């Protein structure tokens, strides 16, 4: 709204996602590089234009954090002015890069990451088995951590199982229609299918839960001034915010502390944007599981606590509904590439605002909401994007 906030002087000018699959026969660093180069190509830029990098990065400027850690200055063959590896993906990565560009620490920042060659064909990804000594001994997994939150919600609010299952079915059907989705062509799914799928950790059944797949995603952020000379319509970061409640997967997440996680971040993001949640045309929400989708509508204040499933049932969440969401099939059906997953949400939001999203395109989408992580992870972040 106001052109004076520093974040409003930067734009997302390029995005890319690689192929997505259960397993990709390369390294995390190489698949990340592919995404990075594709995002630069999308932006009409080259490696020589990059002076800021947010990615997994060893040594000076960062710490070794697998998968996908590499000396990116060495890979790009040039020194950089700004690097970030604390959370180089998704909303926090975009906001950090935008802040760096806005502050003049660099002019063009590349945010990228993903994973490949790490899944080993097992049904449960290693990163969903936190190895903390107070967690691992109990046979915990990410789904069970989120389940501890969802169980209290279910106990207090008794949501309708069919209305919940319909959310998972709708997102999975969006994935069925997306040729790039890992689950492309699968389905169609009904609420009955979701309710008939095997129980993983009560109340979550298999079809309530996200994928664990491989691939990478990237975005390019630069000044609005620079963006004028570039081929893509720039996408504006209208507002954003983050909340870090606790280190994830150590202490069990508690419903009373985390069900509204993100509400403060959302308030700040929408204030900065001069908008309200009702103004959002398309939602790209972090859909670790079905309950998290419901949670985020309640957290945003679009409905009261306990009423999310019924609210979405009535509002509609397809491209023709009042709240189109996870138009690429989301983490449930498109792809969830570990530390690259949060960036996929931004890639799809940018394509929606450009009008190039494919079968999931929402007509005339002008405002998009992107979120990351969730209650069980004990951190949440929110970004409001607008068409150029």
């Amino acid at each position, binding site marked *: 709204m106001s052109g004076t906030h520093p974040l409003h002087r930067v734009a997302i000018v390029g995005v890319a996602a690689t192929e997505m699959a259960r397993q990709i026969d390369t390294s995390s660093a190489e698949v990340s590089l592919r995404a990075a180069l594709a995002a630069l190509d999308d932006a009409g830029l080259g490696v020589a234009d990059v002076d800021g990098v947010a990615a997994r990065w060893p040594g000076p400027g960062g710490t070794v954090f697998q998968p996908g850690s590499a000396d990116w200055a060495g890979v790009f063959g040039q020194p950089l002015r700004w690097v970030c590896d604390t959370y180089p993906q998704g909303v926090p990565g975009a906001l950090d890069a935008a802040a760096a560009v806005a502050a003049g620490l660099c002019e063009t920042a590349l945010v990228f990451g993903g994973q490949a060659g790490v899944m080993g064909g097992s049904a449960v990804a*290693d990163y969903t088995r936190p190895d903390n*000594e107070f967690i691992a001994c109990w046979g915990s997994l990410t789904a069970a951590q989120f389940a*501890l939150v969802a169980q209290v919600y279910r106990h207090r609010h008794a949501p309708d199982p069919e209305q919940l299952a319909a959310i998972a079915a709708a997102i999975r059907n969006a994935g069925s229609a997306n040729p790039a989705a890992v689950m492309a062509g699968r389905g169609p799914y009904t609420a009955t299918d979701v309710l008939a799928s095997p129980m993983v950790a009560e109340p979550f059944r298999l079809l309530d839960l996200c994928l664990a797949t491989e691939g990478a995603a990237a975005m390019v952020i630069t000044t609005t001034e620079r963006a004028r000379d570039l081929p893509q319509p720039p996408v504006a970061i209208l507002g954003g915010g983050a909340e870090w409640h606790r280190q994830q997967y150590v202490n069990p997440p508690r419903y009373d502390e985390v069900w509204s996680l993100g509400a403060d971040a959302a308030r700040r993001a929408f204030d900065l944007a001069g908008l309200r949640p009702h103004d959002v045309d398309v939602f790209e929400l972090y859909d670790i599981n079905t309950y998290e989708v419901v949670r985020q509508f309640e957290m945003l204040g679009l409905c009261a606590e306990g009423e999310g499933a019924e609210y979405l049932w009535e509002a509609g969440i397809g491209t023709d509904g009042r709240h189109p969401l996870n138009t690429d099939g989301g983490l449930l059906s498109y792809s969830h590439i570990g530390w690259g997953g949060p960036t996929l949400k931004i890639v799809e939001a940018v394509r929606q605002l450009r009008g190039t999203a494919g079968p999931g395109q929402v007509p005339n989408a002008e405002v998009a909401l992107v979120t990351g992580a969730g209650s069980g992870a004990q951190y949440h972040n929110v970004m409001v994007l607008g068409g150029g």
Partner: protein
Amino acid sequence: MGGRTDELEDRSLRPLTGEFWAAVNRAELVRPVCNDCGQSFFVPQFACPYCQSTNWDYQPSSGRGRVYSHTTVHRPPTPAFTAPYVMADVDVEEGWHLLTWIVDCEPDQVAIDMPVSVKFVTGPDGHRLPAFAPDGAAR
């Protein structure tokens, strides 16, 4: 996180948490208590989350609490665990909470607010663990 090793690690040698595990080895439950503000907290960390004092010690817990939340896991993360089992977040009466199992009852009998007491069990790696059982459960 590796699989089961032939020789059990001596958990009492772990930095910061060794005393907790040493007590568990003796079938005793302890928790960090701040010597400055008197609050209990968990997991053990170098400073008290209530007053940031680093002056705290492990003290015995009554081992009595209530189920804050619970989930029955049907698909274990590794083959070492046998499903179904009930993971729970238990509020212990001194004002701290921990991830644990509820044992000695059917999974569908576990309920939020159910009173429980510590019951030491042997985990799949052979180590003793502080699980909880419903009060009045058959021994």
